[in-house]
């Protein structure tokens, strides 16, 4: 990819600790990662490796029982956001950074129409936006995510949408304020394979067309191999290996990465079964 592209996000030594009734746990232990302009970076690992907690820690989306520390979290145009207060974070979320979570129905408000959700989002970041203007923008955004004839969707509620449609709406919302960086946490897990392919084509297309960047968290090595340029492999709260997808997926250096890739069932080959 671009060898000297501008750095959009630079995270150094990110650590998360969470106080639980059984004591403090440390799901993320000193993670470094960088996202450059126009780049899709995948974060991959198995349940509990800290991949979701990492991006939630960057966006300060974790609960009050958690503590996030970092040497720095540098976001292009905003400087080091590691010490930002909740109010400062509110100006960044949505506008500088869009977030697409795994479950679209958890992201959408069940008792607001879709139209109103576009309105609330815009009202929060721009004073004086009219409902009519908001509706125009919402219609354009829904068209942009492949929803032809968005009127019915705008007037309806989340529960009336299929999983794939709901995720399209979430992607439209996440990109409405034109953030330069998108975070996606397992955006297609739970969707059918054909819908997954459509959504990933859509979201990566949005990144490429608009010169955005994306940090994509997934447990699916296929998503990494087919849609990302660089990959960060996490295990036990730490980054065990990172590099270009070609390098890491084709000739993994770390034994955990090798084992993970060996676990993908390949026809006619013995499974690499860890004991």
């Amino acid at each position, binding site marked *: 990819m671009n060898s000297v592209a501008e750095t959009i996000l630079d995270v150094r030594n990110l650590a998360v600790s969470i106080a639980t009734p059984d004591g403090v746990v440390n799901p993320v232990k000193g993670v470094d990662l960088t996202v450059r302009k126009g780049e899709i970076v995948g974060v991959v690992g*198995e349940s509990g490796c800290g991949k979701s907690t990492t991006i939630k820690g960057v966006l300060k989306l974790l609960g009050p029982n958690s503590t996030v520390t970092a040497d720095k979290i540098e976001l292009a145009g905003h400087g080091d956001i590691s010490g930002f207060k909740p109010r400062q974070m509110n100006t960044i979320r949505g506008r500088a950074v869009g977030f697409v979570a795994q479950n679209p129905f958890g992201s959408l408000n069940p008792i607001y129409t879709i139209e109103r959700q576009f309105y609330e989002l815009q009202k929060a970041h721009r004073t004086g936006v009219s409902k009519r203007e908001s509706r125009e923008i919402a219609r354009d955004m829904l068209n942009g995510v492949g929803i032809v004839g968005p009127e019915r969707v705008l007037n309806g509620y989340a529960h009336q949408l299929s999983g794939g449609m709901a995720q399209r709406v979430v992607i439209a919302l996440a990109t409405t304020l034109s953030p330069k960086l998108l975070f996606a946490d397992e955006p297609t897990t739970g969707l059918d394979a054909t819908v997954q392919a459509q959504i990933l084509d859509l979201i990566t297309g949005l990144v490429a067309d608009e010169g955005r960047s994306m940090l994509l968290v997934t447990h699916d090595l296929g998503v990494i191999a087919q849609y990302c340029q660089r990959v960060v492999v996490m295990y036990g709260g730490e980054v065990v290996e990172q590099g270009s997808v070609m390098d890491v997926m084709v000739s993994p250096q770390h034994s955990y990465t090798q084992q993970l890739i060996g676990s993908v069932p390949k026809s006619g080959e013995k499974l690499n079964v860890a004991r």
Partner: protein
Amino acid sequence: MSLVEITDVVKTFAARQRGGDPVRALRGVSLQVNEGETVAIIGESGSGKSTLGKAALRLIDVDSGSIRIDGDEITTLETRALRAKRADMQVVFQEPFESLNPRLAIGAIIAEPLQIHRPELGTTEIRKQVLQVMDKVGLPAAQASRLPGELSGGQQQRVGIARAIISRPRFLVLDEPTSSLDLSIRAQVLALLAELQEESRMAYLFVSHDMHTVEWISDRIAVMYLGEIVETAPTRQLFDNPGHAYTRTLLSARLSADPRERHAYKAFAGDTTVRQVSTGDAS
């Protein structure tokens, strides 16, 4: 004759909402599974693949058609005979935890099929066989007294498998048995299933939406779309030379973990997932 003979099975569910259309989950489905063979059913949500798996065990009744297991027509078996037949046909579900009684110890869960089908064995013998089968699926004997909630997802699924095989069934339906498991755990469970089949010559009906998994484990694949099997073929042939347009669509949606292999996703004309998008799915 095959061990499992499913012929022209039809199942329609009543509409969920008044005035809605009934759901034609199975529209005349025929499929055979031989001893020692793994046949996968692939398809997407709503294709009818799980319904077919349930019908094959008579966990649901079908409207018409025939299902023979080892020569017995199970669609018409009386309660008592059906109950006896169940020792021969077992199931492993997708969500291991949800399919295990959270208040029963692992040993008691695994013992249940024997207590039902072979009560004459007696407590000591049943206990012995429970420990044998636990060993076979890779569960330490010490876990017999644990509750399901104390086990990891992979271990829970081993319990589900142990319970399914303890009555020595000849036919096993595996309904997405590895879909909720992490990759490395999935590999362990798949390897276990393959090993058990090698020993016992069980027939597997493997319901899945994961192309990597079915490519690895199955001998033949049936592709379901909207309640019909659109294509059945030996695994290699299906992947190398898919016959039906929908199969090609499914194959194009699979994401290879090798970045050197590229598939461009191609929708096909009859694809409802695409139609939903173009009309706005706010029904």
